[in-house]
């Protein structure tokens, strides 16, 4: 045992000194807000009439701190806070760069929209069961995963969000839900265990869990295959979370069973957490290994896209169809991560082609800020991040709109639905916007990231991948057209079919939202505003995602925030 004075001296050396400004706490604020409101809501679980009045301000506050954090990162670059003031790499770091800030802000945005929708669509029983506390718990996990700078801590946040999502998944305790939840739980636990084992390997190799420290050391370490092993294992673990092709079967098996709001949150956020982790680990920590795996990722991306698109064409239930849209979106994002392939060789050519294309077509102003001095990796990653943010918003919006449509029609089966164009023209118009966006048609938010990705794929020497993106877009347009034509455009098929013969328990689509259609539309209008804004004025978002991509490919600022600015 060291003498007390020596202990104090050692402790003083190991800790960070100096006062922090209140704005520095924004880094941890999203997580703290989620757990604070989650705990309070759990304490008043029986007072279900209080829940909306606590939850909506809670999510509004979450969005506010997320946006303030994003603004701070835009202004000052990456931010770090060390838990317990222990110096890196020994303390647990919360480090947020542009990538994390963009994801966390988008997550806060869709959570607020989903919460507003949930106040109308959730029955009192489901509220008593704890919908809002579970949702705050899940959002705490999601925010923590986007903010943390420690890879073991990332695992912990995955567990937190999984626990929250288990609770949300079985809300209602129906037989079908328990069936879906079993598959979901089992496969997610397999993926999480793989993540944990891989993290054990990683710790054995590097002796550190701090991501910035790993990124530093990985460059110096001689690669003897161990790092490639770790990278492949992470690819499998996160690919399973993200529902990439060979490991995507759990998603269509479980996402259609919970309430629409819950599906919306899952589809919007949970798979994207997997994508985020993949970007963070493969591209920031193991860039050489990522380059070796790029061809594999390209194949996975192409197959994921095609499985999603063909799956969507084959479905006759709105929710199952949307499940496949999620998978197709994941494939498109992964395509952006595959563009490192011919990095060195293709670099000059893409700049040349892109620059000439930019001058030839000044209308493509969105892509222009991306181009100067950026390799295919940055272009692809920027497109992937843009597409991921778009996908978070659009998938949430589609499920929420689909939920409202199913409540009006009394069923989520495309065979039974119909006549919604006349019954709810506003909803139909919004649905059309979201379907256009998810298919990647202009002038909505899905168009520009696809332009960036297709162009990046051609520039990186992977024209077949670009072709797959375009074919997927075409197939998804057909699937979207089917949804719109069957559920909205045609007349309601049979008055009898929409009644008792609908095949779905009426309780599942109890027409609660009808009481105040304006409030039911509010979250959809909010989400549509983002979709239109990002589609018509893509420059602001493209410049942010471009900066995010640069920050991941060249993490100097991230490392500086952990070891330089944040360390003193």
């Amino acid at each position, binding site marked *: 045992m060291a003498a007390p004075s020596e202990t104090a001296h050692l402790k003083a050396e190991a800790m*960070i000194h100096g006062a922090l400004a209140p704005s520095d706490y924004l880094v*941890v604020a999203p997580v703290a807000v989620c*757990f*604070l409101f989650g*705990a*309070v809501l*759990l304490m008043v679980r029986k007072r279900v009439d209080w829940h909306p009045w606590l939850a909506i301000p809670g999510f509004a506050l979450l969005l506010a701190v997320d946006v303030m954090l994003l603004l701070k990162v835009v202004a000052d670059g990456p931010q770090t*806070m060390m838990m317990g*003031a222990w110096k890196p790499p020994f303390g647990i770091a919360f480090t947020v760069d542009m990538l994390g800030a963009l994801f966390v802000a988008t997550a806060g945005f869709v959570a607020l929209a989903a919460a507003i929708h949930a106040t109308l669509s959730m029955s009192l029983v489901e509220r008593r069961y704890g919908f809002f506390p579970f949702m705050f718990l899940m959002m705490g996990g999601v925010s923590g995963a986007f903010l943390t700078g420690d890879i073991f801590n990332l695992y912990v946040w995955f567990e937190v969000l999984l626990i929250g999502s288990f609770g949300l998944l079985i809300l209602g305790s129906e037989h079908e839900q328990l069936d879906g939840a079993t598959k979901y739980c089992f496969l997610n636990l397999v993926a999480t265990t793989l993540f944990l084992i891989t993290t054990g390997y990683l710790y054995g190799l590097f002796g550190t869990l701090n991501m910035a420290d790993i990124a530093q050391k990985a460059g110096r370490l001689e690669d003897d295959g161990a790092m490639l092993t770790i990278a492949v294992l992470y690819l499998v673990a996160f690919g399973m979370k993200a529902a990439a092709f060979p490991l995507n079967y759990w998603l269509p098996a479980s996402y259609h069973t919970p309430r629409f709001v819950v599906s919306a949150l899952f589809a919007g956020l949970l798979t994207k957490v997997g994508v985020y982790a993949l970007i963070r680990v493969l591209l920031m920590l193991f860039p050489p290994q990522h380059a070796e795996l790029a061809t594999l990722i390209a194949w996975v991306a192409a197959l994921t896209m095609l499985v999603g698109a063909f799956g969507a064409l084959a479905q006759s239930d709105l929710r199952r169809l949307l499940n496949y849209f999620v998978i197709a979106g994941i494939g498109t994002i992964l395509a952006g991560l595959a563009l490192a392939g011919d990095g060195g060789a293709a670099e000059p050519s893409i700049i040349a082609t892109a620059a000439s294309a930019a001058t030839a077509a000044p209308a493509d102003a969105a892509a222009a800020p991306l181009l100067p001095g950026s390799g295919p990796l940055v272009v692809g990653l920027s497109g992937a991040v843009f597409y991921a943010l778009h996908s978070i918003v659009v998938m949430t919006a589609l499920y929420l709109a689909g939920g409202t449509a199913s409540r009006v029609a009394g069923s989520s089966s495309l065979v039974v639905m119909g006549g919604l164009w006349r019954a709810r023209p506003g909803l139909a118009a919004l649905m059309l916007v979201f379907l256009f966006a998810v298919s990647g048609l202009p002038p909505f938010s899905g168009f520009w990231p696809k332009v960036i990705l297709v162009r990046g794929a051609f520039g990186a020497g992977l024209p077949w991948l670009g072709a797959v993106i375009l074919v997927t877009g075409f197939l998804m347009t057909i699937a979207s057209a089917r949804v719109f034509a069957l559920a909205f455009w045609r007349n309601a098929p049979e008055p009898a079919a929409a009644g008792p013969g609908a095949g779905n328990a009426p309780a599942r689509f109890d027409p609660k939202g009808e009481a105040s259609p304006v409030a039911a539309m509010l979250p959809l209008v909010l989400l549509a505003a983002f979709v239109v804004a990002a589609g018509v004025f893509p420059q602001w978002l493209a410049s942010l995602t471009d900066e995010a991509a640069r920050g991941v490919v060249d993490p100097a600022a991230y490392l500086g925030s952990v070891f330089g600015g944040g360390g003193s």
Partner: protein
Amino acid sequence: MRTIIFRFTAPYLTALMVLFSIFVLLRGHNDPGGGFIGGLIAASAFAIYGIACGVAAVRRALYFHPMAISAAGLLFAVVAGLLSIPAGTGFMTGLWIFPHVFGTELALSTPMLFDIGVYLVVVGGISSIALALEERESD
């Protein structure tokens, strides 16, 4: 399980175990023990009481719903972190005060507050599971 011997001893056993769990909780900062293990001991105490005297008696004795106890623990843990904001140090930094109460120096700290939070989360979570299982059995 409702033998007269068990029913007679269970309340004493429960009281002793809860007392011991608090002792384990408080010694946990520097010695083996702490919130998690203390919480498990307390939860098993309530489980024993439930087996002996019925779930309704436990629920009456706890007064609050176990999930609410759990939530209060979560709140304590978050507050232990938030206290570092007025102090201007990194989130979750250990902060200590040493007030003198009746001539004795007390060491109060945010790690202790956090540990109490863990204790309550474990007590609430495990007892709510245990009580639910015992209730199912007695149906």
